[in-house]
């Protein structure tokens, strides 16, 4: 731009001048500065310390009777905790991987903690577009496979939370959790 006339005086034979270098350095310095300024602003949109502090919840399972399900909140998301009946466990265990839409973590034993077959704990968010499926209350429609039924677009999940009917592409996700005793879990 405006520098060409002044720069012409110092032009080396190949057309590269000192001013080109100065411009690159100034540009790079400005870019680094802009990045350094942008980062705190962008990072301020990440979860704040008080949000991170709410990263785990304790759940007492004792009051949940067989056949009943409860929904708890973890990180603002619904977590399905269901006390499965013997029939439901049997149904869940008898499914072969070839019958599933999403075989990842498809075996029922991969979806529960060892020795706690009756407790299925899932993130209650449909893997299609994020609605909360019905079925955690016994009065809800549970779909053909007896698990959960999403009212938004009709996806259906079985008693292990695996997707059996689309449009949802994936099984219900499993939250990180551990049994602290037989009747107490810590989610997160």
């Amino acid at each position, binding site marked *: *731009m*405006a520098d060409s*006339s002044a720069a012409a005086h110092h032009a080396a034979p190949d057309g590269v001048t000192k001013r080109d270098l100065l411009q690159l350095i100034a540009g790079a310095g400005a870019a680094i500065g802009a990045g350094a300024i942008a980062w705190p*602003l962008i990072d301020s949109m990440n979860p*704040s*310390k008080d949000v991170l502090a709410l990263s785990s919840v304790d759940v007492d399972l004792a009051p949940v009777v067989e056949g009943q399900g409860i929904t708890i909140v973890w990180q603002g998301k619904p977590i399905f905790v269901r006390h499965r009946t013997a029939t439901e466990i049997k149904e869940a265990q008898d499914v072969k991987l070839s019958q599933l839409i999403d075989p990842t973590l498809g075996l029922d034993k991969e979806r529960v903690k060892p020795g706690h077959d009756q407790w299925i704990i899932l993130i209650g968010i449909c893997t299609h577009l994020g609605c909360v499926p019905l079925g955690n209350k016994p009065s809800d429609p549970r779909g053909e496979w007896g698990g959960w039924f999403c009212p938004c677009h009709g996806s259906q999940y079985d008693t292990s939370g695996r997707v059996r009917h689309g449009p949802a592409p994936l099984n219900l996700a499993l939250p990180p959790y551990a049994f602290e005793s037989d009747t107490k879990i810590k989610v997160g």
Partner: protein
Amino acid sequence: MAGLNKSEFANPVINWIDTRLPIFTMMQKEYGVFPTPKNFNYFWNFGALAMVNLMIMIITGIFLAMNYQPNTQLAFDSVQHIMRDVNYGWLIRYVHQNGASMFFIVTYIHIFRGLYYGSYKTPRELLWMLGVVILILMMATAFMGYVLPWGQMSYWGATVITNLFSAFPIVGPKIVTLLWGGFSVDNPTLNRFFALHYLLPFVLVGVIFLHVAALHITGSNNPLGIDVKTPQDTLPFHPYYTVKDSVGICVYLIVFSALVFFAPNYLGDPNNFIPANPLVTPADIVPEWYFLPFYAILRSVPNKLLGVCMMFGSLLVMFVLPWLDTSRVRSARFRPIYKWFILLWVVAVVVLGVCGAHKPEGIWVILSRVSTLYYFLHFLVIMPVVGKLERPLPLPESISKPVLGGRGGGPMPAGAAAKPMEKA
């Protein structure tokens, strides 16, 4: 008149856009080759600095608004949440808080520049008046922003400032109720102040656009206060003044950073660390430093209505400055008498500021009254009279003459001075 723009840009993408929407041509014309007087001193940095400051305020403000709660029950805590929990929230808030002070420092110097070098005189009257509008909008924005943290000073500042309007006869109390949205400063007040505090900066952007548009019609004033006569008197804005402004921006950012990182609460008031309490007024109530001179004018008059009128008048008188100054010489550099009066006016404003920071008793009352008197005397009497009586020093023939003769500007690149318009 419709018709495609004949773009001269070589880059095909830029050319394609520029043909249909000539923003690149416009930028090149207004900020690339724009002919600018070549004798600017560093006072001419402050317009650009104010622009940068406004951008900083808007950007940090948007991110603060993402975490702030404009509700009397939550506001104070949400500011503490920003300071303690939000990632870099302390930095963003301190930049915004001290940015307000920096904005006023920069703007006040910018205004002083205009006063000293006569930038308000014909043909730049409208440019100046838009500047006064900007100042008033800025003050309103700053005041409402100060209310948002909902500390004691926020609350009582809001109460006192809104009560200024109660001085007007008959309609006064009605106006105050309207401003409050109730019968005291409360949640509706906080809510609307937040809404307006978010709105006004964008109004400012609009008025500043007009301010700059008017500037690019009249062209900039300069330290000699004489008109540009030939292209030899000018330099292309880029790179000469983009670089000079960049130097100023670096210094400005150093001062700004020193304030933010080493003394972030230096200019604040400790009372604002106490949540708002509508039942107890703090013992020492003072506005932020940038309002102190006006606050001192208000207090120097022992009559409520007159005090309020004087305070608003001290700003409004600026609108008619171009017609109060009867001298046709712009720069105070060539006005041997007026030069001392305008500097004395600056002293009066500073004294008023100091008076505003002290309790109105003893010497401070006298000082603030004398300074207030001079403030108005300067504009209403001295300016018109001195302009008539004073015999100005001989003006240089052109901007180039004193620059090349060694007065002020320093050595100039000879090639650039000879052909400022070339290529650019």
